[in-house]
């Protein structure tokens, strides 16, 4: 990259000296870990819609939070809490509708997403219309996260990490072959219920980083890129986390240096990596490339 090295120095100095930058970095690194970790189960289960649905529902909570705080002057602390609550309520709604529409399970998503979007529009207008706060929720504002948020996300990361380690085998078999998991006597319904709730919490926390509109990409794109390279589930997961962390740190740097929205830069770096992976993979697996190498080795004398 053809950038002034001083810009990079400035970024590193800010990381050392400025508390808000440290918070942003910690948040970014933790979300960069959580999102693809959860996402590797989500993409695969063809449930990428869930992330979008929950983030839109969470936005409804955030706008209601702003309304309660700014208009009704209720001491609710931070709209974030209402947003998290709504993400969990959204998750419960999806589960309820899924068991109601047994044969058309995916219809639960458009229903919940509509409700979330409608409530958001309503309460954004009641709370005085579009403002910076709303803009930040839509597109992310990692540079403004506070100390409390860092605590919440650190605890969440820890809990999810422990849960995944304890239930690793069960979670993988459910994602890979749900029917067989049932046959093994695993209570698939219970696992799905809790994983949807966990997804809700992670989505609402990721909103601070990349915003409602880009949360799902944070979970999906690094995994999509990693799937092109990884052979086993474990390597795919590790590669996805690596891609995600690289994007977060590069994104944070550009976002700080040029004032770009953090969500946009992080997601664009993720997409850049995906493109590179696709291109590199194309070059290495093209039939012509193989022909060329065999030909070469054939003409080569011993």
């Amino acid at each position, binding site marked *: 990259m053809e950038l002034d090295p001083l810009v990079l120095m400035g970024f590193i100095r800010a990381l050392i000296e400025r508390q808000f930058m440290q918070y942003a970095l910690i948040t970014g690194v933790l979300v960069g870990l959580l999102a693809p970790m959860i996402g590797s189960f989500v*993409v*695969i*289960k*063809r449930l990428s819609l869930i992330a979008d649905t929950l983030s839109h529902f969470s936005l409804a909570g955030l706008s209601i939070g702003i309304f309660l705080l700014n208009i009704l002057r209720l001491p609710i602390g931070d709209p974030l809490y209402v947003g998290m609550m709504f993400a969990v309520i959204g998750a419960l709604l999806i589960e309820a509708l899924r068991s109601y529409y047994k044969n058309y399970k995916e219809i639960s998503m458009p229903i919940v997403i509509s409700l979330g979007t409608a409530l958001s529009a309503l309460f954004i207008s009641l709370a005085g219309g579009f403002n910076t706060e709303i803009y930040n929720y839509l597109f992310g504002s990692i540079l403004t996260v506070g100390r409390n948020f860092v605590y919440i996300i650190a605890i969440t990361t820890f809990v999810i990490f422990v849960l995944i380690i304890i239930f*690793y*085998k*069960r979670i*993988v*078999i459910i*994602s*890979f*072959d*749900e*029917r*067989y998991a*049932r*046959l*093994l*006597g695993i209570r698939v319904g219970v696992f799905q219920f809790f994983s949807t709730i966990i997804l809700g919490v992670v989505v609402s926390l990721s909103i601070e980083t990349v915003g409602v509109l880009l949360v799902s990409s944070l979970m999906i794109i690094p995994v999509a890129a990693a*799937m092109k390279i*990884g*052979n*086993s*589930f*474990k390597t*795919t997961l590790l590669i996805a986390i690596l891609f995600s962390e690289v994007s977060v740190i590069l994104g944070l740097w550009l976002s700080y240096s040029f004032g770009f929205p953090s969500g946009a830069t992080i997601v664009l770096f993720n997409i850049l990596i995906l493109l590179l992976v696709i291109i590199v993979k194309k070059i290495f697996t093209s039939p012509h490339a193989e022909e060329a190498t065999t030909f070469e080795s054939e003409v080569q004398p011993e």
Partner: protein
Amino acid sequence: MRVEVQNLSFSYDYRPVLRNVSLSLESGDFLVVVGNNGSGKSTLIKCILGINRVPDKKIYLDGMEINEFRKWLRIGYVPQKLDDFNYEFPITVNEIMHVSRYSKMRDEEKLALFDRMGILELQNENINTLSGGQLQRVFIARAMVNHPDLLILDEPTAGIDSESEAKFYRIVNDLNDEGVTIILISHDLKPGKSNFNRIMRLTDGRAKTMAASEYFEKGVD
């Protein structure tokens, strides 16, 4: 494992598929189930596996009423269609075995099982790179990974070559000799392939069961 089915009738949405089916298998029995397409073979075994819910007091596994039965790890199952799982999921053969295993198995035992099924060299292959026949063997190995007492195989040799098929029957026969109860859905009844001792023919949801010896003497129908 003993399997007892008593006058079981089963319908999907009011459409009757099984009519008054009864079956009694002792530990170590080897049952082959035959019947035309749609006669209810897969439906019957899905009832025995608890995939299809049945009323109380219709099926007993080792004397335990099926709705009370919890030791599902003791039953191995290879489904008829192998496209039920998630193709998008990046996972290797070894990982599938690892996450499907909930009872003790030493590493040597696992490798011996892989070797027996001829999938030793496929261990670290991604599931998406396997051929149909290889996939079949992986799923049979998966069915055996928890040391089942009952192995249920739904047309497991459909689409695999005759060499693999012969190997497969040898394995199933050996397992049966070791005392594992087998239920095999198969159209192939040539003697000398599988060592079945019982046979059930399903016709339109009605079952007729007899000993293998009787079948070879008189034929069925």
